[in-house]
């Protein structure tokens, strides 16, 4: 299936026009990191999934009021953040332990930023890895994440040292290209005909 690149701008226009393809694009781009984020905050994946699904329902309801394309992502994160905090507060309230409440509340903001950094880091790594062939992805993981030596990788995969080097180089080139494209906020939709 050929990938048809659609810019976030086009997706935004579709969203505002009430075209569900616009929703598809934003959903595909942000669903996983948002669930990851809400899970970090609430500690509960099932709750996180509900919160995120609800956030997209809200996005749809508010679509005409969004000023520009660049506001979609912050809006989604904001809705999910607030809903997660509401959930935690609701939980605190029911736990009814005044003495402990303050301490929890103080940790929310710090952990919210940490959670954002965490989700963005792993999301970027995930997206980058998706752009590699399975073989270079494997080599890449072994080299950068597991910190294995090139020789060690070559022995383990039963390939030559040169092949490992070439694959690694190719992976880096792909990643550099991809990383710069991230800044152009290009979305690749995988689900279109």
């Amino acid at each position, binding site marked *: 299936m050929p990938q048809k690149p659609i810019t976030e701008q086009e997706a935004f226009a579709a969203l505002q026009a009430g075209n*569900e393809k616009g*929703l*598809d694009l934003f*959903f*595909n781009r942000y*669903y*996983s*990191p948002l*669930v*990851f984020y809400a*899970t970090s905050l609430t*500690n*509960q994946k*099932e*709750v996180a*999934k*509900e*919160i995120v*699904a*609800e956030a*997209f*329902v809200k996005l749809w*309801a508010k679509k005409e009021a969004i000023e520009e394309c660049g506001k979609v992502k*912050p809006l989604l*994160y*904001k809705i999910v*953040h607030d*809903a997660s905090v*509401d959930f*935690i507060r*609701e*939980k605190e309230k*029911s*736990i009814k*332990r005044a003495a*402990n409440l303050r*301490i*929890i509340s103080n940790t929310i*903001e710090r952990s*919210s930023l*940490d959670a*954002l*950094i*965490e*989700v*963005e*880091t*792993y*999301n*970027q*790594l*995930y997206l980058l*890895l998706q752009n590699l062939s399975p073989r270079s992805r494997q080599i890449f993981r072994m080299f*950068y*994440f*597991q*910190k294995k030596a090139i020789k060690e990788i070559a022995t383990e995969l039963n390939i030559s040292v040169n092949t490992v080097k070439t694959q690694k180089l190719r992976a*880096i080139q792909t*990643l550099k290209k991809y*990383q710069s494209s991230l800044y152009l906020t290009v979305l690749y939709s995988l689900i279109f005909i």
Partner: protein
Amino acid sequence: MKESSNSHDENLKKADRVAYLIAGHLNGTLTNPEQDELDDWITESDENLELFEKLTDEDNIEAGIQQHIQMEKEKAAELERVKETIGIRKRSTIKKLWPYLVAASVILLAASTYVIKNNNNDKEIEKPFARTTKNDVSPGSDKAVLTLSDGRTIILDSNQKSLIANEGNISIKQSGNGEIIYDGTDDAMKYNVVSTPRGGQYKLVLGDGTKVWLNAESSLKFPAGFASSERTVELHGEGFFEVAKNKDKPFTVKIITPYGDGGFVKVLGTTFNVNGYNDEGSVKTTLIEGSVSVSKGTANKLIRPGEQAIVSDEIKVAKAEIDEETAWKDGKFLFRDASVYSIGEQIKRWYDVEVEYQGKNVQLFNTEANRNVPLKELLDGMAGTGLVHFELEGRKLIIKP
């Protein structure tokens, strides 16, 4: 108090930038100035250093990426659910979206863990349950009663390790760890019954090699040797079956509920769990592998691994939560979004206590615990949320909001 929108946007930008630097560092794609920028951020505070170390840990990276892969798989179904709620999709069989506030009222056990985790310096965590309770109740254990075909009864407990009886040419032995084994063949169909009391469980190896785990307050009637062309057993309560394969002799479980006939489960060789306690007026058969046919009266359905047949007046087939249904067999309690009533029923049978419900108990709980813990320990976690209260007097447990 919520943050202002601006500070949230700033957080997001900051997070994006730091994430870009850390991801780039891991990938080896950072330029020198970018590396310096990252170093500055790391040395800015102990928290930053700690976070950096956490995010670059090999196991955490793997888990983070795996979690993304998992969510990518669930994405399509979730998008359908959202569209259905919005109204751009016709209603389908897909689970409707709950407003998250409903989810918010679903208070989970993790709530108490959360409090404790974030309050290392707080030494005065109250245990509401402990406060209202004077005694405790120990958990159930391996015990059962065997009734032989001539009416003699033998008390089974896990300490015995010996030949305990013979039925014709069949020897009945105990292995010493809560298990009774039938060995040998005999043409006469002599029926035996193994019954567990409340607070008891037992494992059987039948004459054909089929293994059966019997949960508390359950019983199994079976022939000592399967001489006829069919293998038929009768179950009250709950049993987990690993049926020995024999395509010439189908294996049938006849289920008897407190309300009478609970239908049949017919198999050739497979693994499944049958829950006929009938608390909710139905018999639940959960298939782990192979295939089974479930019937009641003239109705008949074939279920596949991972599915559950719920038999009442009709037979419904749904996706099963296998680990939840079979946790008991592995010595665990596993509750997901479980009402206090369904939790109470399991407590009643395993701890052999009477359970009384007071008030309106609407909360749902998620919890996992070993079945060998004293009752108080099991309840403390749930009581810690403050959403449910327990009072235990002797062997009577009162549950109220």
